[in-house]
């Protein structure tokens, strides 16, 4: 059964069962590897993508629920070959060790900055409560998001 899905502005027909987790469709059918499998239970945030602008954990989000909606993944953030300010800030702050959590965190942060362009440190931390980082890069990641917020509101 085919389900129609809009990802990063492009429409795709996907032949998968409706209850399939969106994550597997993104990674295996659409070859978008930026959303990562971390837990499969919506506990760690490594798979975070935006559905109609809201962050969802795609490992725990059925394909059917994404049908007809607009899905944005990390691959859809750059514009005309220019990185999103969040991506640029992560590079400038060197805010990664293994980097496995980074794409999910950037997507969560994007949803935050889209609704709240100048968040406080506390608001950023709260927004990231569904995202885990195991390497201990927290402090740099928080700095990177602050940097991107400044850049975006310039």
């Amino acid at each position, binding site marked *: 059964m085919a389900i129609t899905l809009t990802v990063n502005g492009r429409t795709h027909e996907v032949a998968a069962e409706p209850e399939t987790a969106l994550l597997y469709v993104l990674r295996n059918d659409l070859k978008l590897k930026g959303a990562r*499998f971390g837990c499969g239970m919506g506990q760690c945030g490594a798979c975070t993508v935006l559905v109609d602008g809201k962050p969802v954990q795609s490992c725990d989000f059925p394909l059917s629920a994404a049908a007809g909606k607009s899905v944005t993944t990390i691959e859809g953030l750059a514009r005309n070959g220019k990185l999103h300010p969040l991506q640029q800030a992560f590079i400038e702050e060197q805010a990664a060790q293994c980097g496995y959590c980074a794409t999910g965190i950037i997507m969560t942060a994007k949803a935050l900055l889209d609704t709240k362009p100048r968040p406080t440190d506390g608001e950023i931390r709260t927004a990231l409560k569904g995202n885990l980082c195991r390497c201990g890069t927290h402090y740099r990641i928080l700095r990177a998001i602050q940097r991107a917020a400044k850049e975006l509101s310039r």
Partner: protein
Amino acid sequence: MSQSAPAAPRKLPGSLEANRRLDRWLRINRDGTVTAFPGKVEIGQGILTALTQIVAEELDVSLERVRLAPTDTRYSPDEGMTSGSMSITDGGTALRYAAAEARDLLLQRAAARLGVSLEQLSVADGVVSARSGGSVTYWDLASDDLLAREATAEIAPKPASSHKIIGKPEPRRDIPAKVTGTPSYVHDLELPGMLHGRIARPPSYDARLAGLDEAEVRALPGVVKLVRDGSFLGVIAEREEQALRALTRLKRIARWEESTALPEADPRFLLKEASEDTVISEKKDAAVAGRAAKSLEAEYTRPYTAHAALGPSCAVARFEDGGYTVWTHSQGIYPLRRDLAPVLGVAEERIAVIHMDGAGCYGHNGADDAALDSALLARAVPGRPVRVQWMREDEFQWEPYGPTMVVKLKGDLDREGNVVAWTEDIWSNSHSTRPNGLGGVNLLAAWHLAKPHEASPPRNPPLPGGGSHRNAIPIYEFPNERVTNRLVKRMPVRVSALRALGATANIFAIESFMDELAAAAGADPVEFRLRHLKDPRARAVIETVAAKAGWRKREKGDGVRGRGIGFARYKNGACYVAEIVEVEAGNEIAVKRVWAAIDAGLVINPDGLVNQTEGGIIQAVSWALKEAVQYDRSRILTSNWIDYPILTFEESPVVEVTVVNRPDQAPLGAGEGTQGPTVAAIANAIHNAMGVRLRDMPFTRERVLAALS
């Protein structure tokens, strides 16, 4: 006259010793690039960027010209494991000498080509120029035979004073891909015809598969093969979600016979186990010992601690024409291959093991096990690659944990408050059960097959680096000292190397006890440490961190907030780290701020060092405050992030790292130096804040309340 034996080959520095040919390490390409072949692998620590800096520096070429070949058993040097904070020491040193020698060989060719002496030549980005005029490039001089020779290590690497690239912060090369979602990890590997596999692990360590309706699973949509061999049970499907559905069904219908007996939850079960006891340090000065006026004793414990990589272990394998290709995030592709060969029943040469990045790796996790899983499944579908990804619960329940430990300490003080005697006993399992062809097979699935392989006997890496006894011998100068390592051989829970090995518990104990002794002596903890330390580099990091944090002599917490110090020289031979931690006691203990000073000798990439140091600190805060693997008497109970909470963004501290730069000293391993000092500094800060002494990790709310009452 007796015949003299042939001269032993000269000892070469770092990993050159075991991989002696220059072309094993470097290739100068005619297209204006240099290829380096590291045997160490990226595990999230940024090593590849540092190695690139080393090669560019010694060869006098720009960073952009240096390519690193993926680590691969078909051509890479065998550097064993990427572990123990040895990558700069082993691999970095090898590449430093190899590149220095390659540069010299190129200059000799240039001198001949230009008809001038070596002294006339200078190099800029691979262009060799003679003072008298005339130039030639490396790329013109290079040929296949240039580096086809054994290294001599006779060409000294550059002194720090002439470094232009080493010592400068260099952005990590892999970060842009990792923040844009470009495929970077073995998890992202996509091969034509690739299938998806999952393993249905037993419910407990020794459980045996007693029954299964195979037909029911075979009939599920997309299922290509069910692989059953003894108690090893896996499924292969066309699509990943189909493999998952089959796994769920397998878990529901498979019947297991369980017989596992796990120990009690308190780490002190170790005290009742048989142990192999070795006195690893003994100093005697009876006259000084006689001055003892006060004596203190204390016991410290650490629980089983999970690596808990954010991404579960993953591997891809293909079986074709009787041989295997395995893509893995293992920390040691050659050691892994040594254990794969007997299980797969082929010669090592028939297995190509290729490294790809994984999620952050803090020691021996499930990476190697997943590699065997994928190979066993691939064998069932010749020609088709099989990708196996562990589930979250596989990772938590089957990875080898950092071992639980108990450390008992006794200290005597004289009337002036000096330590005159120190007695220490440590109980622990081995901290290394990695694969490496050590007589058995250290890969999970191998133990579950119908014809199982025995595990290799556990190794406890020897001192001075040590395993369970890593950092067990205090670096302080005590006139009387007796340290006994009690190695417990029975391993009821699967354990192996976790970042810093025994150093975490040993430093936690030693540094907590130093504070207890300082308090008994009425001394300031910073001054008390300095009083017992001669090594000027050790003193310098303590003095630096005290100054940066604005430490006030005998400062006291206010019942809620407090600060504490922790210090160690990792492995008693690698980097020096001192930390001051500020905690705040609310509903839970919170670490608000950490100051750290680190001396790692010559620093290749200062930002890389700071990143590793910050990360080590935050991870150790998590260990100290929150982490312990849960189990009952038969099963591991920890299976997801709810069972095993780690530090969140809301809880993470502000971290300020100061690098004490020593460019004229040899580089010192720095990936694991913060674990022990962080944990100890937190315990000391809690005591400073509230007057309670926590001696059992983790420092949870329940433990604080129990200590208060």
